[in-house]
């Protein structure tokens, strides 16, 4: 640390200590599970729909056919999941700005949140963080068993203590900055489609 920086640091901390309030206790934070919905999958679907996200609940036996049918113009399909090849993998991008070439990106989320309709993604699932923001359309696989009730539960996920980057993503990019009218997209993905599909290892377990 440079001498100037150390001086500023110490001056700020001295001033904070001199002005700090008398110690107040930290409250106990409940998870409010008494108010949680009985059907988490339905609650998740309703929540994400309010944020312009789309949920596919029907079985999607052939991912490639689904993607080709849903996004007929897509040329570059980036797959960040092992069970589907796509046309490109995130590891192919040397510079993270190169992800802007992606038409559709497919990912798997380790957790959904019923209260908000959010899906969790981190650098572990994304490999290259920008794939989720520079791709035009996003498709996220989510095991319905991995939907938690609310945000209190969500922040207990180990990603938030282990991963350098994690995002609770809720619908496609949007903005209400012009005239207060909400439109999609703003700067990032134009659409977000969540396919409720058991994780591959879960399928094997039930098979």
């Amino acid at each position, binding site marked *: 640390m440079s001498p100037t920086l150390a001086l500023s640091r110490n001056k700020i901390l001295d001033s904070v200590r001199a002005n*700090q309030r008398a110690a107040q206790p*930290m409250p106990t934070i409940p998870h409010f599970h008494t108010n949680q919905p009985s059907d988490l999958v339905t609650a998740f679907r309703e929540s994400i729909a309010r944020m312009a996200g789309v949920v596919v609940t029907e079985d999607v036996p052939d991912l490639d056919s689904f993607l080709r049918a849903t996004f007929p113009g897509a040329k570059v399909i980036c797959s960040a999941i092992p069970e589907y090849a796509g046309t490109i993998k995130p590891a192919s991008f040397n510079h993270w700005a190169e992800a802007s070439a992606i038409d559709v990106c497919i990912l798997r989320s380790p957790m959904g949140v019923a209260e*908000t309709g959010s899906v969790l993604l981190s650098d572990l699932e994304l490999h290259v963080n920008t794939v989720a923001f520079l791709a035009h359309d996003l498709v996220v696989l989510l095991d319905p068993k991995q939907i938690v009730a609310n945000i209190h539960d969500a922040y207990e996920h180990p990603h938030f203590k282990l991963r350098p980057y994690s*995002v609770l993503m809720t619908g496609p990019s949007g*903005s209400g900055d012009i005239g207060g009218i909400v439109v999609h997209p703003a700067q990032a993905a134009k659409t977000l489609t969540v396919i409720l599909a058991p994780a591959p290892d879960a399928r094997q377990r039930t098979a």
Partner: protein
Amino acid sequence: MSSPIDQAKNAEKFLADTVHEQRLDKLLWAMRMRRDAAARLVPEWEELRTLASEIKEHALSHLSDYLTQFEAKATANGVIVHWARDAHEHNQIVYDLLAEQGADTLVKSKSMLTEECELRPFLERRGIRVTETDLGERIQQLDDQPPGHIVGPAIHKTTKDVALLFSQKYGSDPNNEDVAYLAGVMRENTRPDFLKARAGMTGANFLVAETGAIVVATNEGNADLSANTPELHICSVGIEKIIPTMESLAVFIRLLARSATGDTITQYTSTFRGPRKGAAMHVILVDNGRSARLGMNRFWHSLKCIRCAACMNTCPVYRRSGGLSYGSTYMGPIGIIMMPTFEIRKYSELPFSSTLNGSCTNVCPVKIDIHEQIYGWREVMEENDQIQVVKKEAMRVADEVLSHPTLYHIATTTLSPALEVLPHFAVYNRLNAWGKHRDVPEPARGTFHEWYRNHRPNRNEVER
């Protein structure tokens, strides 16, 4: 020394244009209604507000410990932590980091702190091209105006205003006011800047001491793009934004978007704990008067603010005069109680831009006693001889009336009927500085005391 900002006078221009004034009033009130509807759907809403207030008070009463804990954790995660005492130190740190990176372009997401520090002009004078990537903030940048609202910086502009502005700056169709078209124009013009920029900058909604993380909430995804695309991410954040744990973060995330827009959450709620491989992440912890405010017995509560803007959306003065009239970085009720801590004389008139109706306090998700602080600042201004003679006289009369129950009875029973029949000029005269240009609400059919006597005659007798 700066002369005081005259918010009422500044608002005259905005009020003269009824299209903008009525539109803003309606739009912000609709946001307030959406906030109410969202809150009603959460049975534990009031409990969450209490928890949020208590967590913030706990964190601010252990601020030095949590700041050093954050520093240690973030450093261990590979983040480089800087400390800036004031705006100049902050701006210099940012410039030095950009210079070291050889970056002459910067993409940044919205940060009220960088507005407070006047970072953009500082960098532009030194040859750095700055692109604001939040749609509303970019509109204000292109129009050479500061933000008019802390959540929707260009909320005071109509679609027509934006269509004209974009046609001048981007060559788009001036007659196309379709919002999706205009957002598309912004997207097309901003995306190349994301891809080329050598550095990106964000603010932060929260700092988490336990994990050394910064948390950023946006709807556009522009903060994630600014932080993730270039190889240098700089985050500027005020020291008061610290909270202890991820567990406590949940309370604030449940309150923030619901209070701001009525949504359950923002589209992107992102946690940055450290840099990606091959990239650098810097966090600048900024004081700029915050530690001094912590020592103000009457006013330290404003440090609990999570910048949701619910107090602005509900404020009748803000809704009908627009954010730019405050002539300050932070505007509306929260601005009124924060700005005098930066420069008392310049912002000495702001505490009078309020009806003291208390609705700002009622909607605040962290329970800041905003209207009481506004009144407190009025007293400070009077004690420091910082206010106009007219307002001083109005305060003296109010003090006199409020401190004598009999006078209060006479005033409320005689004035209300009078408001119905008095000609406009008699109510909106120079002795009512705020009433100028504004209509007061229709008076109640009776005072509370009259209602009480009519409905509880027996108890009334006993209590008297």
